[in-house]
């Protein structure tokens, strides 16, 4: 399989200062193995675009502990005390974006769209400095597309071409992030033969996917856990 990448080679694809789009909603649909690799990579000054920064010490939360991050762009950071602390101490920049605006801005990044007009956040602090336009049914603000250097996404299965399907609400931001970065790496539970996923059931067609990595995590009781010892 041409796109298969070994987990230990993944972090070579990341450069200091890169902007990473990272899938997931909380810890659901999050590329946990890829994040672990970054946490031990010593990469610096990364910007992460993700709905939130995982939980304290879990998922993207690990990168706050290991000190890889310069900035986070997302919709909800309050639930991770480490993010709040790092921001308070001036160690982490945070750019807050409404969740729907975040999803759409990333989709625009992938779709060759420069920006879009939304009513979301009109008249609020989050609209400050943004271009306004009045359409037939009221005022809108311009939100600009978001693109990344690398997208790290989590899917349930890839086929050997790199087509992806997702597990339930683990889908979340992953499909749009797969469209919006120069390099797209998908962590999956399983790789199946091309043709096993029906054309109309594929959620992310393979043209968006550069590499596929098999997760080191296993799902037990509905939760991903690290296997006791891998060798």
């Amino acid at each position: 399989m041409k796109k298969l990448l070994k987990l230990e080679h993944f972090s070579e694809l990341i450069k200091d200062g890169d902007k990473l789009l990272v899938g997931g909603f909380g810890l659901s649909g999050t590329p946990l193995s890829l994040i672990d690799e970054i946490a031990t990579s010593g990469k610096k000054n990364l910007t992460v675009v993700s709905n939130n920064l995982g939980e304290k010490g879990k998922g993207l939360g690990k990168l706050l502990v290991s000190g890889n991050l310069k900035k986070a762009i997302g919709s909800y950071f309050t639930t991770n005390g480490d993010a709040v602390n790092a921001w308070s101490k001036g160690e982490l920049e945070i750019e807050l974006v409404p969740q729907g605006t975040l999803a759409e801005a990333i989709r625009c990044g992938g779709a060759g769209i420069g920006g879009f007009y939304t009513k979301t956040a009109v008249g609020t602090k989050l609209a400050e400095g943004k271009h306004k336009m009045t359409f037939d049914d009221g005022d809108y603000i311009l939100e600009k597309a978001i693109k990344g250097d690398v997208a790290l996404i989590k899917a349930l299965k890839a086929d050997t071409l790199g087509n992806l399907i997702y597990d339930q609400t683990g889908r979340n931001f992953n499909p749009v992030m797969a469209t919006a970065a120069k390099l797209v790496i998908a962590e999956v539970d399983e790789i199946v033969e091309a043709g096993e996923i029906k054309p109309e059931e594929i959620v992310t067609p393979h043209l968006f996917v550069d590499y596929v990595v098999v997760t080191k995590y296993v799902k037990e009781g509905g939760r991903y856990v690290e296997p006791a010892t891998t060798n």
Partner: protein
Amino acid sequence: MSQQQRIKIARRIAEEFEDNQIINLGVGIPTLIPDYIEGKDVYLHSENGLLGMGPTPEEEFVNMDLISASKKPVSVETGASIFDSSDSFLMIRGGHVDVAVLGTLQVDETGEVANWAVPGQNILGVGGAMDLVAGAKKIIIATMHTSKDGTPKLLKKLTFPSSGVRKVDMIVTEHAVFEFKDEKMFLIEVLSDITLEELKEITPASYELSTKKLIRV
């Protein structure tokens, strides 16, 4: 007592729902509502990408990749559908969600809501609040009448940052139900043994008594 009051609010809001409506429930009191909508064919929308959200599953069926917007494990109802975040907010922003029930920090007497940030504190979370305020067809606020220390939440003017220019349609507290029409606030029901004078005292927002006969439940 407080939990009883929260349940009262949840129950009253559930009465507003109509068959076939698409409902999005925010965090806090709104999460209590599913227990009180029996007998109505409504569909719960969860902004992380699920329509037809069902109750908490038995432990053996928990899959942490099937969760609510509050990140709790859920199940799917028959006929449920899964979609990505951009399609989920297409639904919200595009007016395809019939009712959003939201918690709040403050609401002013025109129906403008502040439910995401407190001045002087870290402003590090907004989630889907502003999208729902901008896009849901009807917005019902579920809130205790005052904050824990007794500070009023229903105000003449917001002192916390606004969540958007779109006005809410209804407020349900443990004491009363208010409706908004043309940016004016009307008291339409009293839900506790509070007197109208006492209610006035804890409600700085100006409101009129509804022209409908005011109901004391």
